[in-house]
């Protein structure tokens, strides 16, 4: 889940009586499971909410290159290096699909980038945590991509056509990412005592931040209610978090690792695991820019953008010269 706490109209879902004729027709199409395409009429709130959500997701893919990029030059084998490169390349590709999907809503990639760099738009809180050992590459794939898939699989059915199609492509690659992460964890958990220690340490550090990826409980959120009515959000945050915990705990057991939650236990009656909530004050601090790596991540992205200005300008100038020469020749 790379979009957290996406604000919608903030006004709650309109009743049919409150809707205009256009809005009613639009809602009927969404309810009937039709896809909304870029040229179709859509409420302004729908368009804006989608831009925020898709933009935040795209930014997460881009900033998300950094914690994993941190280990590419230190990957322990050629195969691991190749796999990690392929994965990070996929993520940049996901960013590209998503920016393209956002562009169909009338906002350019440059505008979205400026919004990220100025702090007006956010990216997922998870990428503000450091990757400290090689086992973190396993934990990121297993837990972070695992949590992302939980949200992205239902989003393949989202009402907005370009977003839905981007999600279908992305999901195919994400499941490979999660598998490679789990494979790293398996190797480490079955490895030397030092490797096992690294694996447990990675799980300890990434468990709660992964649970935070779904965002705080939104059962009472007017933003989420509107997004769900528009089918740009399919499940509540709590539903997805529960699903993630239920899926992940047996995987941790298979690895022989301990989930760092003394209150974690299977609840026979509910048919789900009971688990502790993450520290939401930490989550809000990270979202507000006070996480362990916020400053570094933003500085890295700003530096890439600023240092790259001469490259973008140079290539634009060259393209313009070529275009002018072609016109002159005709």
């Amino acid at each position, binding site marked *: 889940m790379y979009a957290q706490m996406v604000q919608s109209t903030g006004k709650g879902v309109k009743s049919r009586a409150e809707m205009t004729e256009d809005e009613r027709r639009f809602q009927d199409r969404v309810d009937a499971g039709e896809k909304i395409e870029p040229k179709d009429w859509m409420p302004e709130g729908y368009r804006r909410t989608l831009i925020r959500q898709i933009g935040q997701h795209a930014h997460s893919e881009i900033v998300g290159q950094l914690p994993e*990029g941190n280990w590419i030059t230190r990957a322990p084998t050629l195969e691991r290096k190749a796999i990690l490169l392929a994965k990070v390349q996929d993520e940049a590709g996901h960013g590209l699909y998503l920016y393209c999907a956002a562009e169909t809503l009338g906002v350019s990639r440059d505008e979205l980038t400026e919004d990220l760099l100025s702090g007006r738009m956010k990216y997922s809180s998870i990428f503000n945590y450091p990757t400290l050992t090689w086992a973190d590459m396993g934990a990121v794939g297993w837990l972070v991509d695992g949590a992302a898939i939980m949200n992205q699989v239902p989003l393949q059915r989202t009402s907005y056509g370009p977003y839905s199609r981007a999600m279908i492509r992305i999901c195919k690659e994400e499941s490979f990412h999660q598998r490679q992460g789990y494979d790293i964890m398996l190797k480490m958990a079955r490895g030397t005592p*030092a490797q096992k220690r690294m694996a447990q340490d990675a799980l300890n550090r990434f468990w709660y931040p992964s649970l935070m990826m779904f965002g705080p409980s939104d059962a009472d959120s007017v933003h989420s209610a509107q997004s769900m009515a528009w089918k740009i959000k399919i499940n509540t945050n709590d539903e997805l978090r529960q699903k993630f915990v239920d899926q992940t705990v047996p995987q941790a057991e298979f690895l022989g690792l301990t989930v760092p939650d003394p209150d974690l236990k299977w609840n026979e009656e509910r048919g789900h695991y009971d688990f502790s909530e993450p520290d939401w004050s930490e989550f809000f601090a990270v979202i507000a820019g006070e996480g362990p790596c916020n400053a570094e991540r933003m500085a890295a992205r700003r530096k890439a953008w600023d240092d*790259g200005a001469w490259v973008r300008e140079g290539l634009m100038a060259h393209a313009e010269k070529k275009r002018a020469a072609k016109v002159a020749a005709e």
Partner: protein
Amino acid sequence: MDENAALFEFLLRMGDNTLILGHRVSEWCGHAPVLEEDIALANTALDLIGQTQMWLGLAGEIEGQGRSADDLAFLRDAWDFRNLLLVEQPNGDFGQTMMRQFLFDAWHLPMLTMLAVGGHERIAEIAAKAAKEAAYHLDRSADLVIGLGDGTEESHARMQAALDLLWPYMAEPFEADEVDAAMTEAGVAPDPGTMRGAFMEKVGAVMDAATLTVPERRFAQTGGKSGVRHSEHLGHILTQMQWLQRAYPGAAW
């Protein structure tokens, strides 16, 4: 020189070039000027690491001491590396990275093309596969050198500075030693000197289009492919690249 020993050395040269350049290019991950370049740089690094697995894998087989591609990549010290000095040079700005890439590609593609029709079947197979990737790398790096050379005043100045900085490293690939002589004699690889013409022709055409000037020949920097004198940079690359394998000997990853 014993042909097997020469073959081993030659394969290290091919594999160490792609390993070290792949490492350098991968340092860009997440820091490129535009998203498309992040993707393309990761893709280039990925190709180069894939080629490394093939070259060093074969080198280990030829050596016959039971060393794998990973053993060769992660457990040799700097003096046993056989890459060109060019590829261990720092990334610098994006222009310097792309100039280094172009100069390498403009040597690499014709080299691979010759190896693909050479007398060693396994080498020819690897080269044929790698040549497809190298052709794409060369198209891309040439386009970027042209676009940035013939772009703005600033991009032009940066590209000229990159060319001036890196040109002294471009004699090394064409100098022959006893390893090359043994490979040439065995019909495996071309005499490196014979490839200079095609290289200069490509460089000349691209630099013309890029409005850049190839510098007068200065003192040539050599010592990488012989391993006699690497730059100070290689030790730092290895410190990073080999760290896990060195810190946790014998662990499987």
